[in-house]
């Protein structure tokens, strides 16, 4: 006797319910009841009319676990189609990640340090930032964490570049078309609010574990949001008078974009990139659960094996890497600002 028998009796569906009544697997509670040592069911219950509860009254109603099974089957059914589309598109991401990782793990440490410090100098023209970078890199090497740190950095580098390559054009398009902006903003909100673990679940089923694009996609999806938002904002905030001057002198739309809008929006775009870099770093640690290499792996080991020291040391390195990336990208941003406003 179930709580909602009366409902089906009342609307006259009893006969329909009882035709080939469920002989399928029973719930745990029913199995226990069969053995005879379960708690006796209370004579009166007022349970919420959930799927399970309705199923007790009418065998034709699906149980919640059937719905979950259905979701899974549905996803698995569209998986081949999704894969044929996504495989070729995302393959270059795997190649880029693998190539960059190979480069950063096989090149000698002094070469990597030299190239990175020179790059930092040309991006920032700030001696103090270069010195700070040199200190951080030396610290990684000193505590024998240089390789995982460089793996993490390589992943961030590739994902940031991909995010910029995709995000900036999307942001520009959004700034030009209000409709597109209205359509994309909810997607961006979704990407930002979705818990990071939730990204990983469908990706695991879509791509074989061990392929680097698996975590690459998760990181790009998470980190692309700020660069899109701030490019859109930056282009919209460009001084209308200067754009009008471009029009008055007969600029084509492409010239306006290249000579006026993008240069004037650059500080905002750079601020977006800074955020993208920081979010990539956050995600690359979490993505170590799906085989992303680097410092995250050590953190994960610390958690899994309760190796406190390993986790703490990796944590310190991550903090240093984060500060290093943040300082460098902000210094590059302020260099751009400087050439535009003062001097």
């Amino acid at each position: 006797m179930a709580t909602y028998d009366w409902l089906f009796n009342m609307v006259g569906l009893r006969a329909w319910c009882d035709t080939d009544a469920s002989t399928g697997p029973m719930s745990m509670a029913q199995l226990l009841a069969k053995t005879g040592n379960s708690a006796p069911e209370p004579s009166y219950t007022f349970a919420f009319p959930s799927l399970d509860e309705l199923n007790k009254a009418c065998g034709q109603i699906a149980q919640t676990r059937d719905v979950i099974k259905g979701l899974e089957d549905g996803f698995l059914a569209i998986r081949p189609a999704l894969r044929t589309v996504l495989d070729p598109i995302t393959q270059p991401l795997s190649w880029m990640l693998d190539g960059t990782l190979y480069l950063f793990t096989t090149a000698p440490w002094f070469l990597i340090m030299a190239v990175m410090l020179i790059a930092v100098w040309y991006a920032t023209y700030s001696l103090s930032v270069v010195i700070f970078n040199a200190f951080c890199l030396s610290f990684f090497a000193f505590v024998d964490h240089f390789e995982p740190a460089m793996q993490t950095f390589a992943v961030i580098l590739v994902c940031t570049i991909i995010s910029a390559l995709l995000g900036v054009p999307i942001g520009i398009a959004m700034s030009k078309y209000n409709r597109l902006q209205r359509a994309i903003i909810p997607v961006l909100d979704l990407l930002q609010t979705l818990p990071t673990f939730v990204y990983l679940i469908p990706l695991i089923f879509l791509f074989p574990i061990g392929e680097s694009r698996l975590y690459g996609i998760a990181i790009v999806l998470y980190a692309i949001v700020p660069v899109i938002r701030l490019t859109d904002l930056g282009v919209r905030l460009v001084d209308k008078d200067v754009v009008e001057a471009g029009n008055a002198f007969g600029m084509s739309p492409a010239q306006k974009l290249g000579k006026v809008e993008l240069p004037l929006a650059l500080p905002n775009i750079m601020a977006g990139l800074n955020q993208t870099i920081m979010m990539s770093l956050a995600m690359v640690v979490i993505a170590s659960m799906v085989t992303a290499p680097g410092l995250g792996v050590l953190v994960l080991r610390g958690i899994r094996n309760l190796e406190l020291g390993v986790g703490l040391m990796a944590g310190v390195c991550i903090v240093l890497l984060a500060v290093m990336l943040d300082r460098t990208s902000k210094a590059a941003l302020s260099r751009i600002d400087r050439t535009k406003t003062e001097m």
Partner: protein
Amino acid sequence: MTQTPKVSLRGLYKIFGSDDKAVLQHAKAGMSKENLLVSHQHVLGLKDINVEMQAGEITVVMGLSGSGKSTLIRHLNRLIEPTDGEILVDGVDIMKLSTLDLRHMRQNKMSMVFQKFALLPHRTVLQNAAMALNIQGAATEDQEGEAKKWLDRVGLGGFENHYPSQLSGGMQQRVGIARALTSNSDIMLMDEAFSALDPLIRTDMQDLLLELQVELKKTIVFITHDLDEALKLADHLVILKDGAVIQQGEPQSILMAPSDPYIEDFVSDINRARVLRIRSVMQELTEGKFAGDVDANDNLESLIATSGGDTSLRYRVVENGKPVGELDMRELVKALVPRISSSETGTRYH
């Protein structure tokens, strides 16, 4: 007039709003700006504008804020599309131009100077001045040579590698003028070009513009809200109020015969001695003794200085060496008083 005008506007209407074409008939039927706003929620920007701008002249469009003068100048290069009417430049109706032709016209025929300068902040002064040629895709040496030449001409030699933000407002506007001149277009549109500058710098810039104009003979359309500036620069003065032209013509004649209380009010506040020219107040030549010769194009102020303030004198007025009239100092003093004094009109519009 036998000469064909460089730019002419014919029956130009501009109505701001979503359904401007439908509201146009009401505006044409003479509905006022206020009624149009109340009953149709559309703003009347310009109303039946007919202006002809001659080649080589400075046409000044003057009006208070909200009178539609900035809207008007933006119609000349179609930064704003009119609701109705024709805009002829060199006899071509620019409303019929394709996007590409319009772009070419903006590149080659018209240049513009802006109130807020609108320079590119990330480019040097030289690159800013060369902007027009850069857009046209000229070779870098040509761009820089031409830009340098005009920067020197507006007095900014030596500042080529500075950035706009390092310059004062007056200097930035000189860059704006050099940019317009570098494009080598016949027509220059100046939208309140000097309004953001302080008075002394503004006078300097006006002098610079007049000096350049003697040599270059561009067709200049100048927008201002300042009557002194308008009278100083204008060959042809157009006065706008609420989107309609209320008087246009030679500035001296507007000054001597304002057709509307609105203009009288404007006119009553200015320094007439400096603005009025002798030719505007002289009488017919008669026989007699003259204290001396004066040029017809001098202003009254210079004559007062020459005479030392003696009102009993009489001068012969000459133009290009020929006597054309005479001027009694007493007549001059009378002309200094406007038909309606500023104290009487002061309360009407302020």
